[in-house]
């Protein structure tokens, strides 16, 4: 992989947040940001602050819910959890993403030999 970190495509952060919440259950913003960084093995360039715009977007669309709570270390934080609508949206988006990457793989994997093959 190139030494430079990947810039996040528009909308991909929202999807990452949804997936993280779907897998991890209720989490606060910092936890979500750390989790995404860990899973992506620090390959994405994530300003942790941008996660909050993503969270408010998702919450206003009704895909996640939030509540103030106290985590293990006794510090008050806002916890987010995915909703039923959010799970449906995630399944939809994940399928869409899968198709898109599949197409990209095929197109980018095309070699000159394929061109000569009859259709």
């Amino acid at each position: 992989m190139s030494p430079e970190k990947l810039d996040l495509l528009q909308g991909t952060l929202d999807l990452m947040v949804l997936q993280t919440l779907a897998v991890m259950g209720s989490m606060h913003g910092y936890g979500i940001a750390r989790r995404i960084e860990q899973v992506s093995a620090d390959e994405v360039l994530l300003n942790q602050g941008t996660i909050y715009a993503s969270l408010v977007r998702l919450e206003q669309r009704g895909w996640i819910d939030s509540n103030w709570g106290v985590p293990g270390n006794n510090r008050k934080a806002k916890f987010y959890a995915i909703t039923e609508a959010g799970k449906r949206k995630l399944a939809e988006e994940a399928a869409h993403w899968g198709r898109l990457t599949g197409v990209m793989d095929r197109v980018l994997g095309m070699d000159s030999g394929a061109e000569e093959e009859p259709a």
Partner: protein
Amino acid sequence: MSDMRLSTARRGLGRFFAFFRGRALDRELEAEMAAHLAMAIDENMERGMTAVEARRQALLRFGGVDQAKNRHREARSIMSVEILMQDLKYTVRTLFRDPGFTIVAVLILGLGIGANVAVFSVVNTLMLRPLPFPNAHELVWIAPPPTKCGLSCATYSTDAYDEFRVGTRSFQDVTGYFAFSSAGNLALKMGDAPTPATSIDVIANFFDVLGVQPAMGRLFRAEDGRNGASPVVVITDAWWRRQFNADKAIVGKSYDINGQQTTVIGVLPANFDFGAVFSPGAKVDAITPLNL
């Protein structure tokens, strides 16, 4: 199911209040970000960083507190417009799906609101708004009990008026006007063609009883209503402006009104509106003295 509906309702309310709660939301975000940074600093210190370095790294990874705040705000405001549009679209779609219901609902609402406005404007004019006269609380309206035979039964004869005026001990004075005037009963001849206007005949003490002062000139005296008095007229502010070009020297001038040279003796103040007080909807241009 009920849980879902509950959370939908809560979210709806949240959106509604978010509209008025921009600053509260900012404060909430600040608290959230402060917690975030504190947790990051804690974690960095657990890894053995000094407090200063832990804080520096945490801020670095966060990537600009103000920037995050602006993005949050932006997301919020774009969303509220988007959501508003969505809600509108949904509403319109729902309404179009059942045009019968929509038409009936719109008609009922329209008629209901219209009727309310109409009734209120009448009630407001007639009953709620104080009369636009000094000592309005001392004024009373004397009228026969309501009957079905029209204006004739709602008025008094001049004899009855004289009786009232002489016999009353409850009132300082009694006045009246001629209620049978019709619109356009006055013909003002200034050029070749007469201009129609509306005048009302009032008893000479009319303005004294109401306490109205002229804006210019004078109002009626008892002798203006007597037999053989030279014809005079008092004009309203609106007519003075419209017909006489707000002529500052109009008092004392004579005009051909209904074939008689009639002297303008005064102009009423702008706030005097005969129609608004005595016959809502009527437009009165001039007041003439009634010869009892």
